[in-house]
């Protein structure tokens, strides 16, 4: 009894220490917050990474105890939210990527400047309108707007944090449930909900608020319901599986197509299970055909996308076979972009999890084939292995045999990682269990660390090494793995993120202008504008990031800073005031000084000074019609 009390006291102390360190880590992130940096690594507090390692180590020791599963999951959720919040906490406008473009569009919904979705009603045809309304950005814009209205806060905060929080809460739970559905123990399942944070691509997509990320979360649940559908005869699981796949499609077409191709595979597996006794050969053939169909759905969908979107021109090609040596083609098939410019450590961190998972899948399949009692487990492992292979092969097809893809093929790695995480946990937990079994078998029943002196030297050394492996080595290795994955997940090289002075300039213009206005600036100014007023807002017009007219006007203004281009911009956007913004870090000192001195010579332009913003960083000129 006293030993149990001692253990429980120790557990409580570890939990309090863990939660205190989590609070400290959030504080360190807030202390690292900056308005001028390229990557999080430039400004991250030096104590954050060591603290994260200690936190993960502590968490693992808690996970290996007999603490209640729900408490363990809550601890993991807090950990998960922490590691996915680096962009949102450190940068004032989050990561400079698609998420900021998404914010620019979402703000149009929040500010009621668009009707009937982001594309608006009179589109060229009904068909285009239907396709446009099913774009994931529409759902994301609607969802974040509702959250922002409920909380009565600005859309920027909801947009920045909604994916890190939703991912942090729901992905570990999905991983837990999937592992449990595969027959894993409570502890193995809990381990898998932590290990899902050991995959760099999954971490990255959990840290940026893009429609694809929401799709990944829902996809993981549809995968879990597919396993439930395969293992039960409850008709409800069919509806749940379909509902989650549909919502996954609404979130993003990529996750939707993958969900539906796996759903088709699950349905084939179910009929295989029903009919394999009367027609063993036919069902096996249908399973293989179904695998090929599911495999081809994603690449074919990209080809058919051109019927709906004129800007997409994806084609199958063999060009790479003429251009590249065979070893590079094979490298691209399996490793893709990792072949170019990534260090060995990053490559290992990206592939170690999937490789481990694949090896363990093979082992489980081999084991369950020889075990007559494990028919259900066999089907589930086979289904997951096929799903994993579909992701691997589809990635290779997209990378080697296709061109003009509308998205980065590496996004498929997130699916691969989500499928792999439960198997990595099962394999690691199998090692832990076997160590525990050995420890129990070789030590006397009453042995504790305090009574080791009574044992022989060899025995006590063996027990000590087992205890060391279980309590120190394994938590340290997994803790190190998760921590290193974080360093691979957040980019080491990036352009300068949206700066505080760009945001201040945009805010100042918005607050001090009562008329309709247009801003001529570079792509970075547009990103800042997206945060504050959105893009193509008729009252405060910023051209989109890829808008050629906006780009040409900016280039013309740089060459010849005169009202001529500003008038053109005003006529084009039906506004009465035009602003021209140049920023020193974006243009470089020489070009910045040249443009500013030319513009200052033109007395028709008015210089706008923003309080608190140094003129050596940013210059704003304005011109009013009439």
């Amino acid at each position: 009894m006293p030993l149990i009390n001692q253990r429980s006291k120790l557990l409580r102390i570890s939990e309090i220490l863990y939660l205190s360190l989590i609070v400290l880590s959030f504080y360190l992130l807030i202390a690292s917050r900056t308005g001028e940096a390229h990557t999080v690594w430039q400004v991250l507090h030096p104590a954050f990474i060591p603290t994260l390692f200690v936190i993960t180590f502590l968490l693992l020791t808690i996970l290996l105890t007999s603490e209640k599963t729900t408490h363990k999951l809550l601890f993991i959720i807090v950990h998960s939210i922490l590691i996915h919040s680096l962009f949102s906490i450190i940068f004032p406008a989050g990561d400079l990527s698609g998420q900021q473009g998404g914010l620019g569009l979402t703000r149009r919904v929040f500010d009621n400047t668009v009707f009937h979705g982001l594309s608006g009603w009179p589109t060229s045809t009904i068909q285009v309108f239907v396709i446009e309304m099913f774009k994931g950005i529409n759902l994301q814009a609607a969802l974040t707007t509702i959250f922002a209205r409920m909380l009565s806060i600005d859309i920027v905060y909801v947009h920045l944090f909604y994916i890190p929080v939703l991912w942090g809460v729901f992905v570990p739970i999905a991983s837990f449930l999937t592992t449990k559905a595969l027959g894993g123990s409570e502890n193995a399942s809990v381990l898998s909900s932590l290990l899902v944070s050991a995959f760099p691509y999954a971490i990255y997509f959990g840290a940026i608020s893009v429609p694809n990320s929401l799709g990944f979360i829902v996809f993981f649940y549809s995968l879990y319901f597919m396993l439930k559908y395969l293992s039960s005869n409850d008709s409800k699981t069919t509806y749940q599986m379909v509902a989650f796949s549909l919502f996954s499609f609404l979130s993003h077409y990529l996750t939707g197509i993958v969900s539906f191709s796996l759903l088709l595979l699950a349905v084939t597996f179910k009929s295989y299970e029903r009919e394999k006794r009367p027609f063993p050969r036919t069902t096996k053939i249908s399973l293989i055909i179904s695998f090929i169909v599911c495999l081809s759905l994603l690449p074919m969908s990209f080809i058919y996308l051109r019927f709906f979107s004129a800007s997409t021109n994806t084609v199958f090609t063999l060009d790479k076979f003429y251009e590249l040596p065979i070893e590079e083609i094979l490298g691209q098939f399996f490793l893709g972009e990792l072949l170019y410019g990534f260090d060995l450590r990053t490559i290992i961190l990206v592939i170690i999890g999937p490789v481990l998972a694949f090896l363990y899948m093979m082992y489980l399949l081999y084991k369950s084939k020889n075990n007559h009692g494990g028919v259900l487990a066999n089907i589930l492992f086979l289904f997951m292995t096929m799903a994993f292979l579909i992701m691997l092969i589809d990635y290779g097809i997209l990378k080697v045999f296709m061109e003009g893809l509308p998205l980065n093929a590496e996004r498929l790695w997130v699916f691969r990682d989500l499928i792999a995480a439960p198997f990595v946990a099962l394999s690691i937990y199998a090692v832990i269990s076997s160590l525990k079994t050995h420890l129990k078998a070789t030590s006397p029943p009453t042995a504790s660390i305090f009574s080791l002196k009574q044992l022989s030297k060899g025995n006590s050394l063996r027990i000590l090494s087992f205890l060391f492996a279980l309590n120190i080595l394994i938590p340290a290795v997994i803790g190190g793995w998760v921590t290193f994955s974080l360093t691979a997940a957040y980019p080491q090289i990036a352009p300068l993120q949206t700066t505080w002075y760009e945001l201040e300039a945009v805010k100042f213009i918005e607050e001090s202008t009562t008329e309709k206005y247009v801003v001529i600036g570079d792509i970075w100014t547009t990103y800042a504008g997206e945060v504050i007023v959105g893009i193509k807002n008729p009252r405060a017009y910023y051209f989109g990031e890829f808008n050629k007219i906006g780009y040409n006007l900016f280039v013309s203004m740089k060459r010849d800073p005169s009202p001529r281009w500003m008038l053109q911009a005003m006529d084009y956007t039906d506004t009465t005031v035009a602003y021209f913004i140049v920023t020193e870090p974006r243009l470089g000192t020489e070009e910045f000084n040249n443009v500013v001195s030319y513009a200052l010579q033109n007395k028709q332009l008015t210089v706008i000074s923003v309080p608190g913003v140094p003129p050596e960083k940013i210059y704003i000129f304005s011109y009013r019609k009439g």
Partner: protein
Amino acid sequence: MPSIKMKWAVSFEIVEKSVVYDKDFIYTIASYSVILAIFMNLNSLHSPLIGLIASVIYSGINAIFLGNAFFGEENTFFRFMFGFLSLTMLLGFVSWLIMIIYNLDVLRSILVLLITTTLSSLLNRRRKHKNATY
């Protein structure tokens, strides 16, 4: 002596049962009242604190409704989590639909919340009646 964690778990289960039972639509009405508070906050007070409290109450009630409606067989923790995820999905779907039909200004956002609560409450009652017939 039960621990604090156990007491919390037991009291959560009592609250959950009471919400699921929804005697005389008391929690449905509470949810509508919270929507009214959100509407007033959006129009006059603009307080994030009130918004946060109202959102937590709104999400709690409706997540319990939906958790019971679709995932009644799961344990309390997962039922609530599934309920919360379903609520997010339902809010997303209804707001997406309203946005496509017209837009998501304050009034229509309130309409989204009203539709979501009504659907959640009805689904919860449907499940309750279904169980009662067995």
